[in-house]
């Protein structure tokens, strides 16, 4: 026996029959809206606030109406709370799910300046401006006003404020698990099914969103299982499950998503209930579980009744009232009206009566009989049959009601209105099975015309629905389903088990078939009377739903979007059935014909932090570093991201600006020598009998006759004829090639080659190995490159006769085994020196030491870009965008006319390829040599033409070239090849117009005279 001792002078405590699940020896202090309160361990924020006589806990979304606590679980639409401070603050948490802990800090939401006095409540008076679809109607026209509207809407939209500091300091984890059977929901039937299945030895995971297993039974005082109170049965079965090695129990864990092939996502609130988090535990943990079988035991949600003023603080769901009395030992009112269309609420009347409250029952049904009614009458409680609460009134809490007799269909008031004082309304409109997970998994629903609810019919995934979520509200029936599902699921996973005896349940005999009464009349014309809410969180009233139907929003999906009913953090758990029943009524249609909206994950809001887990910051994406990275850092390099790689961008010296540093690096590469870390280039080792034939089909040019030790530039097309990658490939041996790709294209090119080999040409014998990270590459470029290699200790003859351009030799440099390629991306004498990755840094430092006397200068990717642009070399992905052919790039010279086939050959012959308005590569010289035209700038032929101007194309590369002494650019222009010599214009954002001449792309050394140094 627990009687809750008074906290903050609350008068509302009385001894209860069952043992409440709070520990009165463990007081807990917490703060709500700046005031200190005391609750007990085991309390939720909602139960502790009610125990402290706090009923007003928030303001509503649209009208800023005072709102209280309506439910006792995750379906709560009203009591949304901002928890914590600063970076730890989290908005829109349900007070009914927050376990209190010492020092808990909570604030109400959506009120300015305070909960009791909220200036937004003026919206309530201006309500005729806020009908259904009000945003759509109000903010439609003129379009020029949208910018202003958007500000207003954004300011008004949303309930809670996010954290003040957006860097969430908490740690989240993700974990993967496999099991034979996942049981979603740890109420009576979930526990029973888990035990039944686990007895077979099958691996079971049982998850429940509450801190304790037991579900709604934790809040019931009048149910015996076996010969003892239900709670004893719960604790026995939980203890038995906990002792089984094949069972994992996950309390505080919501199964929030049910995806294909029995893949489920769970959010475990591992430490949210603790005043401080142990270092070894995350705040929350996301579980990704693959189960062979799923047993869904989600329970049901009680529906509100739709009467005027049903949103006042003090108007609660009848089942929730029982939970507060029995589980938390707090009676939420002293003068209670129970209003219902079913038997179940009579149990609330009895519990209220036993808790010492004065109770009146208003039953919408004219003739309800049975043992429960007798028990209530025997307790001396007044029952008004065929009566409804037609309106509730109060300021910050319900204070009085109007009760009136109604006709059998509850469509009209049929007698005099009676006024009663009260401080609590316990309402019950029947139960809606929580079919969310079943529906997420694309299970089918059927309408139960007797129980007035949708319940599961066919499942789509290997799963079972049991108990209340299956529409089996009677506990005995639910337990029988649990035994059956547990046995069947175990057997489906290959485990045998004999059916357990279903325990005997002793409870009031009751009917589970409520009266259909969706909208309670209030004696006013439609839309005139006080508001009767359907969706509490979104402030959608019964007349909003009817109005939407009249305006033509007849699909339930349209109704949802137009009125916003069923949106928000509760996703309409308490409101959806009422809304679509009222819609069906307005349309003169049957409820099942109207149907439900789509159930989507998450079941309840899930923290993004848990979904991101550790994949944030440095761990968001791997960063790849070259073997020379330490040197670049030690020498002050600035870096840029190239895909996952970090590449040295430029090496500023003595306070140089970027432009100054790049100019110096570019200059050095053409006057003395430059050294580039080219390790990130994609490298693929190609071997096999048919390697040459494969390259012949892959590239546009000929490869079969390439000599051993020779290099060749190749262009790769997709089969639509568009350029996808380029690079130099070298024949190492008869059946052995070394391919290079662009840095960004490496993985894609390997995928591409594997795909063709496996799917189109499986007869070719070719083996591919990515060797990008096996080789470190330093590119030495410039007139002094040969001298530096000599001084660095090269062991073979570098003379052009012995080592011509476009060839490769294997040798040693300073004792390091190397493959040296005489290829050039700068147009200068250039060597790409490849050594085993572990020798990369040694190679680099040796070259730098040997080059000191020869003016060696390290250069980064920016100088590399300028150097290649000076030569008019393209970069795939910069000049090209997947819609560019070799012809567009003036690269017909590389496309074989004689090969019978290569990837892209047929597509290049399509007639559309001959259109003369294709964008083609050209060079540009700005009329002002010091102005660098911005990349992406759009060209027009006539800057004075009317808007919208005819665009020719865009600048793809643009730099200042220190070697040309002026700015240079490349562009893709429509019919560009034929425009050579003409002038184009670039209208800029600031109103100025740049002017440029169309020229060839080879800006520097167009004859290629410098290639041998």
């Amino acid at each position: 026996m627990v009687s809750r001792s008074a906290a903050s002078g609350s008068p509302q405590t009385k001894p209860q029959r069952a043992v409440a699940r709070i520990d009165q020896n463990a007081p807990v202090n917490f703060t709500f809206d700046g005031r200190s309160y005391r609750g007990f361990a085991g309390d939720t924020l909602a139960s502790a606030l009610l125990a402290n006589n706090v009923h007003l806990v928030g303001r509503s979304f649209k009208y800023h109406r005072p709102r209280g606590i309506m439910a006792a679980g995750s379906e709560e639409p009203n009591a949304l709370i901002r928890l914590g401070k600063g970076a730890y603050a989290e908005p829109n948490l349900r007070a009914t799910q927050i376990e209190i802990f010492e020092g808990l800090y909570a604030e109400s939401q959506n009120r300015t300046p305070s909960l009791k006095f909220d200036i937004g409540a003026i919206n309530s008076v201006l309500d005729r401006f806020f009908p259904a679809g009000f945003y759509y109607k109000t903010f439609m026209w003129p379009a020029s006003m949208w910018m202003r509207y958007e500000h207003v809407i954004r300011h008004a939209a949303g309930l809670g404020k996010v954290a003040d500091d957006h860097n969430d300091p908490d740690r989240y984890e993700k974990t993967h698990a496999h099991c034979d059977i996942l049981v979603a929901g740890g109420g009576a039937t979930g526990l029973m099914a888990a035990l039944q299945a686990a007895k077979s030895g099958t691996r079971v995971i049982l998850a429940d969103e509450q801190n304790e297993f037991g579900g709604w039974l934790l809040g019931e005082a009048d149910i015996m299982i076996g010969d003892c109170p239900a709670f004893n049965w719960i604790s026995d079965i939980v203890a038995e499950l906990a002792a089984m090695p094949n069972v994992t129990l996950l309390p505080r864990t919501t199964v929030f998503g049910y995806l294909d092939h029995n893949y489920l996502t769970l959010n475990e609130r591992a430490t949210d209930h603790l005043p401080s988090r142990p270092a070894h535990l995350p705040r929350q943990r996301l579980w990704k579980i693959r189960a062979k079988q799923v047993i869904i035991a989600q329970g049901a949600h009680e529906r509100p009744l739709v009467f005027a003023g049903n949103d006042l603080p003090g108007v609660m769901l009848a089942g929730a009232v029982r939970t507060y009395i029995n589980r938390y030992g707090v009676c939420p009112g002293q003068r209670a009206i129970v209003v219902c269309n079913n038997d179940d609420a009579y149990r609330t009347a009895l519990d209220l009566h036993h808790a010492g409250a004065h109770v009146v029952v208003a039953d919408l049904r004219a003739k309800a009989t049975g043992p429960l009614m007798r028990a209530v009458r025997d307790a001396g409680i007044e029952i008004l049959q065929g009566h409804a609460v037609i309106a509730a009134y109060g300021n910050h809490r319900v204070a009085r009601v109007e009760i009136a007799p109604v006709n059998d269909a509850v469509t009209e008031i049929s007698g005099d209105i009676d006024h009663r004082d009260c401080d609590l309304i316990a309402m019950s409109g029947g139960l809606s099975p929580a079919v969310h997970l079943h529906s997420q998994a694309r299970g089918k629903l059927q309408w139960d015309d007797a129980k007035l609810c949708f319940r599961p019919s066919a499942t789509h995934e290997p799963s079972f629905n049991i108990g209340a979520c299956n529409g089996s509200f009677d506990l005995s029936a639910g337990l029988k389903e649990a035994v059956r599902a547990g046995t069947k699921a175990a057997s489906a996973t290959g485990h045998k088990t004999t059916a357990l005896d279903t325990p005997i349940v002793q409870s009031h005999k009751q009917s589970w078939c409520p009266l259909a009464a969706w909208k309670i009349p209030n004696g006013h014309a439609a839309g005139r009377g006080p508001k009767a809410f359907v969706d509490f969180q979104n402030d959608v009233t019964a007349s909003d739903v009817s109005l939407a139907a009249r305006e033509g929003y007849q699909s339930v999906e349209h109704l949802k979007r137009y009125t916003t009913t069923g949106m928000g953090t509760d996703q309409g758990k308490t409101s959806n059935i009422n809304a679509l029943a009222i819609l069906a009524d307005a349309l003169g249609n049957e409820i099942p014909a109207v149907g439900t909206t789509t159930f989507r994950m998450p079941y309840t809001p899930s923290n993004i932090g848990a979904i991101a887990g550790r994949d944030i910051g440095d761990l968001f994406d791997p960063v790849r570093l070259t073997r020379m990275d330490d040197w670049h850092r030690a020498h002050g390099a600035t870096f840029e991201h190239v895909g996952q790689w970090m590449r040295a961008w430029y090496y500023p010296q003595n306070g140089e600006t970027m432009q100054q540093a790049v100019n110096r690096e570019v200059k050095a590469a053409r006057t003395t020598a430059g050294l580039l870390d080219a390790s990130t280039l994609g490298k693929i080792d190609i071997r096999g009998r048919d390697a040459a034939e494969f390259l012949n089909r892959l590239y546009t040019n000929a490869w079969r006759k390439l000599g051993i030790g020779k290099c060749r530039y190749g262009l790769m097309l997709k089969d639509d004829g568009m350029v996808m990658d380029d690079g130099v490939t070298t024949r190492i041996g008869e059946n052995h090639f070394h391919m290079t790709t662009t840095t960004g294209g490496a993985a894609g090119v390997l995928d591409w080659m594997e795909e063709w080999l496996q799917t189109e040409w499986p007869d070719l014998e070719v083996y591919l190995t990515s060797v990008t990270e096996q080789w470190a590459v330093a590119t030495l470029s410039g007139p002094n490159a040969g001298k530096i290699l000599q001084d660095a200790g090269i062991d073979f003859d570098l003379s052009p006769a012995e080592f011509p351009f476009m060839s490769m030799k294997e040798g040693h440099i300073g004792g390091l085994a190397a493959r040296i390629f005489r290829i050039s991306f700068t147009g200068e004498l250039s060597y790409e020196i490849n050594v085993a990755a572990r020798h990369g840094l040694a190679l680099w430092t040796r070259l730098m030491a040997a080059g000191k006397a020869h003016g060696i200068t390290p250069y980064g990717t920016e100088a590399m870009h300028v150097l290649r642009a000076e030569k008019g070399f393209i970069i795939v992905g910069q000049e090209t965008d997947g819609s560019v052919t070799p012809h567009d790039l003036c690269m017909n010279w590389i496309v074989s006319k004689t090969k019978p086939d290569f990837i892209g050959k047929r597509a290049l012959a399509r007639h559309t390829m001959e259109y003369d308005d294709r964008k083609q590569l050209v060079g540009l010289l700005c009329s002002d040599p010091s102005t660098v035209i911005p990349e992406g700038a759009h060209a027009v032929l006539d800057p004075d033409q009317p808007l919208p101007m005819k665009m020719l194309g865009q600048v793809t590369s643009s730099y200042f070239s220190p070697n040309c002494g002026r700015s240079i650019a490349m562009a893709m222009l429509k019919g560009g090849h034929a425009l050579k010599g003409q002038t184009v214009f670039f209208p800029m954002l600031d109103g100025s117009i740049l002017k440029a001449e169309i020229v060839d792309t080879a800006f520097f050394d167009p004859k290629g005279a410098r290639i041998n140094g």
Partner: protein
Amino acid sequence: MLIITCPFCGPRDEVEFACGGEAHIARPLADHKISDADFADYLFMRDNPKGLFLERWRHSAGCRRWFNVARDTVSNEIVEIYPMGSLPVKTAAKTTYKTSWRRDTAAEKAATPSRSKAGGSK
């Protein structure tokens, strides 16, 4: 998220795989003289059926092998998994293959004979 049974590695999560789109699109050889419109059947036209679909998948984060999957796009039921270069044997999948409009296209007839029979793959 699907479970896909890689013929080489066994059942794995979908995240390890990449879908390569419609299967059995035979590639016409470049030297065959088919019209641009016929070639477009190969290059551009892709089916997007509601129901059974024959598609290519690859175990990209595993063994990197390609294979064919007969999957119902509505229920996500995987009816059959069969090797690249072969045809399905389950009745429903076989019917899907045989009744495809592609079987009569000039593009498919212009493909290597062995490929078009095995239903090529690009």
